[in-house]
């Protein structure tokens, strides 16, 4: 096995165990791994941004293809950096104004089309569908999201949740019933989102544990076992040092 893979297995195992040590309590090993994570992530983002923006979007198109118009966004981007010069900081407003203006302009028609009209269109669908040989049919199959019964449920769900968030009308009488229905739909959605998130995290946990089990293999030098012992020993020693340095109460 290549030496860089073996070293990588030791590093990955160590960092994984350091982070898992937080389940015991907050400790220096966890903080070390946490700060390492932030540092590596920021460094990675900087390198990737440099490669994408500076190299592929600015340098190569301008120098190799002669796309001099790209100097305009470079100039706008440079205006942002005037934030560091107090007397010229107001120039950065031009850059923000451009970004916000373009963003707002692009958003209006696209949001109306894709997120409002399209969503309403998908909500208000025909209840009867044409089935070959059977003519117009009302479908009861709950497992098919496009069935007639589900169309009614979706329509009730969307309307009641929208009504629940509509505060211009007091939620009394029939309105109260509709708002309560909206709350029930919201609770089901929150529960589903919670369950889904838990299972996604469990999947990540299984992935990490699978790696730890794999790294108990002698071909890697059993880093999982050695480093697990070392982590526990470090925590015990630090725990004892912490308790001995705490002044005793009279």
């Amino acid at each position, binding site marked *: 096995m290549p030496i860089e893979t073996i070293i990588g297995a030791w590093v990955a195992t160590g960092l994984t165990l350091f982070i898992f040590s937080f389940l015991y309590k907050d400790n220096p090993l966890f903080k070390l791994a946490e700060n390492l*994570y932030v540092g590596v992530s920021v460094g990675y983002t900087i390198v*990737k941004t440099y490669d994408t923006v500076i190299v592929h979007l600015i340098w190569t198109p301008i120098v190799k293809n002669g796309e001099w118009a790209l100097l305009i966004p470079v100039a706008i981007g440079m205006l942002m950096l005037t934030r560091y010069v107090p007397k010229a900081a107001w120039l950065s407003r031009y850059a923000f104004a451009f970004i916000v203006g373009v963003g707002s302009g692009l958003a209006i028609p696209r*949001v109306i089309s894709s997120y409002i009209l399209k969503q309403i269109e998908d909500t208000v669908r025909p209840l009867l569908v044409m089935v070959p040989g059977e003519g117009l049919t009302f479908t009861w199959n709950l497992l098919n999201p496009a069935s007639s019964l589900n169309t009614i449920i979706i329509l009730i769900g969307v309307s009641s949740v929208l009504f629940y968030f509509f505060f211009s009308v007091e939620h009394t009488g029939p309105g109260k019933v509709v708002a309560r229905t909206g709350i029930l739909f919201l609770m089901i959605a929150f529960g589903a989102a919670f369950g889904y998130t838990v299972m996604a995290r469990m999947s990540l946990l299984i992935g990490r544990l699978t790696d730890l089990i794999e790294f108990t293999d002698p071909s890697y030098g059993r880093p999982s076992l050695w480093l697990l012992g070392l982590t526990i020993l470090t925590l015990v020693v630090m725990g004892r040092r912490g308790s001995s340095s705490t002044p005793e109460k009279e």
Partner: protein
Amino acid sequence: MIFLRRQVPLLITLITGLVFAAQYYVPHPASEQMLTSVTKWLQIIGGFALVLGVSSLFHVHAIKIRRKEAGWGYSFVLYVSMLGTIAVGLWSNGKEAVDGAMTSFGWIYNFMMVPLQGTMFAILAFFIASAAYRSFRARSREAAVLLIAAVIVMMGRVPLGEYLIPLSGDLSQWILNVLNASVRRAILIGVSLGTVALSIKIIFGMERSYLGGGKE
């Protein structure tokens, strides 16, 4: 001077906002080209915005190290790991692999970033479970509905759950595809209406907080 500092930015927002809102309704190749170009422009400007954020991070931790504040050693670790990753990344030309062979930058990604990120999110499973234990007691009808929906979805996502409750798979899919979808749709419509309203306010200068405070 107030015109340059206050009115010109508002004018830029108004003109760019109206132009790019109108662009959607002009199906001409030149209009499409303009959209492609401005998308690239925004990516370039976004790169400069990263400089602002990162320099702020550099500054905060540099102060901690210089003053030797509590936990300055961790800031030092952050600095070293960040600069180390940048140096290695530039050395590898920002590539994780070349001709199928892992570069040093790829090594950092595979053996440091992926395990750190994966474990950091994985420990959330434990905290979510403990939070659920404390807050999920069915104290009201709404809480009970939330609890039942969560349990069904959790059971429906794993083979053991489907084995124990055979209906949970189908029920979970129905909850996600119908009930959950209807709520997401309603929220999306509400958020979209808000987005459109805010965009209109920004374009016509009624919302100016993005310009920041400070001197006129």
